[in-house]
């Protein structure tokens, strides 16, 4: 049973030191967490055509699109610092990178407005309607 009283602190000031980093949402699960030569073997194969961006990954052509973060929002990559041993203890995460736009890649379908990640970008506006203050 996990502990409902433990808290995960977000070290907010770490955002000042965080670097802008390119982020790509890949259409496959990669069973790995850790370093990879992304710019050398992936980003280097990106091509901008008239209406689409393509890249080759493991011999497959991917079609991509850049998405900006919604207005008033910033992309953050949070990383845990000093992972504690038990889930009773409080934890801390810091902002390790920031981004204002991301690139998502589809395997076959050209990027379009029905893509999950595109629709997800509408969430802040709907959330504002749901959670904003109502008049008296």
């Amino acid at each position, binding site marked *: 049973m*996990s502990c*409902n*009283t433990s*808290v*995960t*602190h*977000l*070290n*907010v*000031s770490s955002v*000042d030191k965080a670097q802008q980093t*390119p*982020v790509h*949402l*890949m*259409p*496959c*699960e*990669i*069973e*790995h*967490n850790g*370093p*990879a*030569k*992304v*710019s050398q073997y992936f980003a280097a194969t990106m091509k901008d055509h008239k209406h689409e961006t393509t890249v080759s990954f493991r011999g497959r052509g991917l079609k991509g699109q850049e998405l900006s*973060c*919604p207005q*008033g*929002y*910033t*992309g*953050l*990559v949070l*990383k845990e610092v000093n*992972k504690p041993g038990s*889930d009773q203890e409080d*934890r801390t*995460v810091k902002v*390790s*990178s920031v981004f204002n736009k991301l690139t998502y890649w589809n395997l076959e379908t050209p990027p379009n*407005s*029905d893509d*999950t990640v595109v*629709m*997800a970008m*509408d*969430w*802040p*506006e*709907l*959330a*504002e*309607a*749901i*959670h*904003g*203050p*109502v008049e008296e």
Partner: protein
Amino acid sequence: MAAKKKRAPNVQNDSWVVIAADSAIHTQKHDRDADFVKLRNPSTDAACLYMLGCGDAQLYEVKAFEEDFHSWFVGQTVQRDGRLVFVTPMDPLFLILPYFIKSGKEAKFQPVDQVVTDEEFPACSRLLSCTRSLASLQHIAEEKEAGSTKFHRYSEEKTMNWLKKKVERTVVALKRRNISVGEGVKSTTYVRVKSEPDSHEEDYLRYAHGLISEYISADLSRALLKHLELPELLSPKETEPPSKKRKLSDNPVEAGEDYTKFNSADFVRKPPKKMTAAQKTLAKVDKTGMKPMSSFFSPKVKAEKN
């Protein structure tokens, strides 16, 4: 969908890709950190992850959008967990309301700090520090003042009116979104929908009701449907709003879905709760009508019971 290949569980995850409201990170006081805390989800009654920022002045919802078979490249690293986590401002009253409903059964006026307490979720008292909390109690409770102390008693009538306003605000936002998408790829949807103005309006209402129902109990959701003068749908159909499906939210039905394996209350090992079964719902998306957004945003399990 083809059977999933067996994957090694992702246990080493210590990194998350997040899109967060600027207010949560660009605070004037940088010494005031934000906290991810577990609180009782008003719809499921189970532990769920939220964030308190700006020195507890603002509550945030933590919601993960997820599709099967996705991973991130972040700079020169791979992050296996392909979820995109949104941190958006949330109305604390949604989390305070269940405590009032519970105490309302005693039908007495009580000080708010006696109402909003929870042994299981001690962080709930921090909700009362949110800027909007105390001032907005009048939307769900009657108020009496004795000396310098205020006493409150739950009012269903007030709550219904408040929730109705929430639905109306949401309808406006949905329409606004729709007009902008109507010019582009979804123009056929827009035109089709235009030709049936009556059902159109009801669709919006049901749809907004479904979104609001994510933040209230199943009982309250039903009562709100009545308050909105929307008939309950008798048979489950494709057009059914997400809220209807959620009626079963107390049953183990949803727990049978395979995404529950991610819904641990443990933020760090198996990252933030709240997630949509995006892949599944996307498969169900009816691209001929108004449904995509609601199918997309609504059916989700936020956290497991401990």
